[in-house]
């Protein structure tokens, strides 16, 4: 299972890549593996705003629904609309083509490092 060093993480299994004031967000390799085949992604509209910890959408596998939580506060600047027709990108490439949305964020504190996130996963198992 892959936990790239250059990303930051949440306890609810989202990953975050911060570039300037834009945070790109997805779910981790561990999360997609736990979910199984992703068949549907429920996304907000661009322009919506969220506080850190808010539910902003959901990822559904054949069997289960999993809420998505905003890792940081901000405004949605872009969603990955390719997921509407190809939600399986989340399974195939969770840190790449399976990215979910981009938030414009002023404060990106409070996230976990890769090594801290690995401990979260270990504690679950």
């Amino acid at each position, binding site marked *: 299972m892959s936990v790239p060093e250059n990303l930051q993480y949440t306890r609810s299994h989202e990953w975050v890549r911060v570039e300037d004031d834009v945070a790109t967000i997805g779910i981790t390799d561990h999360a997609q593996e736990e979910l*199984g*085949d992703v*068949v*549907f992604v*429920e996304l907000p509209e661009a322009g919506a705003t969220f506080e850190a910890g808010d539910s902003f959408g*959901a990822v*559904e596998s*054949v*069997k289960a*629904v999993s809420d998505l939580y905003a890792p940081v506060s901000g405004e949605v600047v872009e969603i990955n609309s390719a997921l509407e027709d190809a939600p399986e990108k989340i399974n195939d490439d969770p840190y790449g083509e399976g990215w979910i949305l981009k938030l414009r964020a002023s404060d990106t504190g409070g996230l976990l490092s890769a090594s801290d996130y690995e401990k979260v996963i270990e504690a679950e198992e």
Partner: protein
Amino acid sequence: MTRQTPLHEEHKKAGARLVDFAGWEMPVQYAGIKAEHEAVRTRAGLFDVSHMGEAVFRGPDAEAAVQRLVTRDVSRLETGQAGYAAVCYESGGTVDDVLVYRRADDFLIVVNAANRDKDLAHFRENVSGLDVEVSDESDDWALLALQGPEAAGILQDLTGTDLSGIRYYRFVEDEVDGVPATISRTGYTGEDGFEVFVRPDDAASLWRKLIESGAAPVGLGARDTLRLEAGMCLYGNELDAETTPLEAGIPFAVHLYKQPQFIGQGALLIEDAEGLKKKLVGFEIEGRGIARHGHTVTDGAEIVGQVTSGTLSPTLDRAIGLALVAPEVEDRFTVVIRDRPVPAIEVPLPFYKRDRKRGGSA
């Protein structure tokens, strides 16, 4: 304490994800639900359903006891024939849905794992005055389901029984791979296939043989998507103590005028005469989203029912579901998916029907 089937080690070796199901540690998936589902639709899949319960009725009044307990007229079953039936309360609500096997000297009833203790208690409470012995033989059997168009070919290589002679819902007691087995042409997937009862100690070796012969191991996740596409009920979803078999859309399992009467027959006769209070419908979601068990059905204003099962159909690639709705509900309604109303349209059941020219011959 979670229980394990005799195939537990095989599941672990195959990399299954194990979950608690009705008190049993069971595989929910191996390679992935979509791949397993497709294996059953196009080739062959192998399920461990050893958690199902087996109740055996023996004695001079065995038939009378089963007649009292189930909705089907089992006097019409021949030796070597199985029948799908419901078990009802006096209210007409459903205790369980079961398969009744008529054997030469007794009756075997296969019950849902989650209902095993409840069913056995219900059976024993309701056979008073009859000369019958009701035994819980659930722990004496492992049950493997081999399903899919290639199932008959794979199984034929392991048995001397001519499988082409076993019609749908018929069974024989013989041998598979050199061990005693009951071979039943039944299943819960909408495909041709067999359910094979063997002794627990013989299960692992047969499992490995069937996998080596090309069957893909399939977990409970795909078992649910397969049965839902085939429009089959799941107890706890479509059927429960508050839902009658007529409401749940399985009148073919109910012989409403049978004699002697079954428990609940009076209530079902009244319901049949006065009209159903709710009805089971199949639907497709027309907007975006996937309906799930427990979601509300509305007519746009009022609540008119509930989704009992829903999934993204791997075969059809559409969001499908079953719902119990008020009888007057027409063919267009709304499903509230996570607070979002989405249009749905009723479609005929089953969602998926196999091409009988393709499978079905051994």
